[in-house]
């Protein structure tokens, strides 16, 4: 049975990179005695895949991984078992069964929502806040991306689904699909440049709020959280 798990990551564990989080969950499954399915061969691996890696330093309320279970005692039992072996800052938020034929988490991703605050707890500079309406109303938001070979111009605008800036918090819902993934800090950097203020990525704390799939069409998207693709069990 395929199961999707939603987890959150806060505090010091934000410094643990994606590959180590993967190893952390593999060990957690064993400690919690979850009856997870394994691949065959001399070094069997747990059948486990993640929706999208979370960068080192980022926190999250809504990250996902898919696993395959051989047996189980219901979602609540699974969640409780896993939460009893988590380190502080890591928490299992939900677990749902994926009906047959549902794409895995990674392939399902269409969008993600984020909040961005200043690490020092202060408000965004007034010059930035006052430029927001004008900035976000522009037809296009062009940034240049450095790739290995050359620099690329990208228009962020079509990839921003929702965005708002209050004094102390920036919130956005953006494209997270493999083709059009953008970062919340790219929008902020463009805004700061627009306002003529220096942007320093290290000053900002990014938190992923949730990750979504598109149940509608490309023209008429209907974004739902990844765990809404499954059913309780």
């Amino acid at each position, binding site marked *: 049975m395929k199961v999707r798990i939603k987890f959150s990551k806060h*505090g*010091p*564990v934000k*410094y*643990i*990179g994606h590959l*180590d989080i993967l*190893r*952390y969950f*593999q*060990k*957690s*499954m*064993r*400690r919690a*005695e979850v009856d997870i399915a*394994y691949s065959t*061969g*001399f*070094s*069997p691996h*747990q059948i486990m895949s993640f929706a999208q890696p979370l960068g*080192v*330093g980022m926190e999250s309320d809504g990250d996902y991984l898919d696993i395959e279970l051989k047996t189980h005692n219901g979602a609540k039992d699974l969640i409780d078992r896993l939460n009893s*072996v988590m*380190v*502080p*800052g890591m928490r299992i938020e939900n677990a749902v069964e994926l009906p047959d034929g549902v794409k895995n988490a990674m392939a399902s991703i269409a969008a993600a929502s984020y909040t961005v605050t200043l*690490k020092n707890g202060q408000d965004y500079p007034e010059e930035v806040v006052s430029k927001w309406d004008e900035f976000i109303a522009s037809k296009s938001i062009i940034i240049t991306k450095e790739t290995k070979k050359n620099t690329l111009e990208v228009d962020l605008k079509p990839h921003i689904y929702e965005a708002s800036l209050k004094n102390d918090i920036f919130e956005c819902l953006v494209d997270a699909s493999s083709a059009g993934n953008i970062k919340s800090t790219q929008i902020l950097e463009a805004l700061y440049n627009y306002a003529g203020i220096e942007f320093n990525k*290290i000053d900002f704390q990014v938190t992923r709020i949730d990750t979504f799939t598109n149940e509608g069409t490309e023209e008429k998207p209907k974004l739902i959280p990844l765990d809404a693709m499954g059913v309780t069990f």
Partner: protein
Amino acid sequence: MLALSDEILMSVDKPARYIGNEINSVVKDKDKVDIRIGMCFPDVYEIGMSHLGLQILYSMFNSYDDVWCERVFSPWTDLDPIMRKQSIPLFGLESQEPVKNMDFLAITIQYEMCYTNILQVLELSKIPFNACDRAEDDPIVVGGGPCTYNPEPIAQFFDFFYIGEGETKYRDIFDLYKKHKAEGTSRRDFLIEVAKLGGMYVPSLYDVSYNDDGTIKSFTANVPGIPTHIEKEIVKDLSNTHYPDAPVVPFIKVTQDRVVLEIQRGCIRGCRFCQAGQLYRPVRERDVEWLKKQAIKMLAATGHEEISLSSLSSSDYSELEELVNFLIAECRRRSINISLPSLRIDNFSVDVMGKVQDVKKSSLTFAPEAGTQRMRNVINKGLTEEDILNGARLAFANGWTRVKLYFMLGLPGETKEDIEGIGILADKIAREFFDTVPKEERKNGPVQIVASTSFFIPKPFTPFQWAPQATKEDFIEKAYICRSSVMAQLNQKRIKYNWHETDVSVLEGIMARGDRRLAPAILEAYKKGCLYDAWSDTYRHDLWLEAFDECGIDIPFYTTRERDLDEIFPWDFLDCGVSKEYLKKEWLRSKEGVVTPNCEQNCNGCGAAKFGVGICFNRK
């Protein structure tokens, strides 16, 4: 609250090295404990966290309600300058508080090449380098581990050394410390009491005098009532001692990312170059039923996906078959991998290896250590060419094609023929493959042999403690002879030859048999920028040579000099059980190429029987 700011953590490699918070790490209320101790492995986190001894002591200390033990590691080279520049004190991972707030800083000293890292840990902790400069409120700095069997080069940096196995005496030390705190006695008074516990060496309480030729004239206590002969601590019953049920599980991948089950201590084989083989005598086995239970507990508490067995010579463990068969069944059920130690190749091990390894990817390991039988007799390595070829043939018949061979160069009395024997032996193994495996059965490809040589460094408490170490030039020439001999073989295309760095072997040799006069040079080298000497990328031989030169250290005195039979060694006041008389006898036997039977075959009266345990009393 972390000790390092977000800005720092985001700017260094692997910030998870510094945040603590791992599964099974222990956080206590500092106001509810009497003693705080920082358990330090003076190298980077991934190396330190792979060390079993640290996990054992961490778990044991934290099992005491009145003690909180935290872990301390060397900050990596990217963080080190930041901490200096911003004056951030080194901290314990659990509390994230300065080491300086603790009562003890316990440093495990596993190899000579970590000595500058010890100074780094002291300096970043803001603890004076020299024990004599420490104030009453500085942590007591205690050293343990194999290098304490010659602690003299670093003696002045430590308040005391714990000689031997850590499980036995720390409780007494802690009780003594609490009494000392309650009574308000001085640091020195506490250390004098520690010295009387037995197994403890307090360097400041002893004086050394030297002869005109630089050798030691005398080693005397400068305080009445303390021993001048310090016998190691030893665990008498290994199945009734502390072992961690729930080791700390690192977030990042460490060198030993697995459950480690120590099946026995000590070794029956008296290889004359091997320090561990003498230090940990006598062999004591752990009860197989106890090990089975322990394995299950540790797998459950860590979630590790692999388990390995640890000992000096696992094939000699009497219940190995029983244990391995149990683990294979249990691990298969739990989808856990078994990482086998290198085993003597016989029907049992070939069967077991076939069950737990992918024959195509795994390799056979032999450690002949020397290329000819003559030389193997000199070093008392009880492995014959016939053993190797028979083992190889058996493994080839079962599909193996990869062979790893380990040798040493620079052994006492080594000749050109002995070195050339390495290439010849490797070739014989290749011939064995082509002679015994028919073409149509070579489905895993042809044989691939990797021969590696390391340079021999004489170590204290071995029969070779009197032996001269080869010079750097000799080492290079020996490696060249060895390479040429490999190239001259019929099957040279099937043999790959690797050799180790020479510079670092010279430094290790100086430290291994060094004395108190080396300490200023170690400090000088550190001040010049030497750090992480065990890492080839950071090792600065030029700076070390400068430091030795400026401090007037005569390198050959420590390395290439053959010691007189009656010379007083810097470590003679320590007693690991094996007597100097016995080692002397073994040194003379080695010169005649006479082998000595192992402990299971015959008791040779090494002296370790005085502990009253182990193989000395229950020979099979």
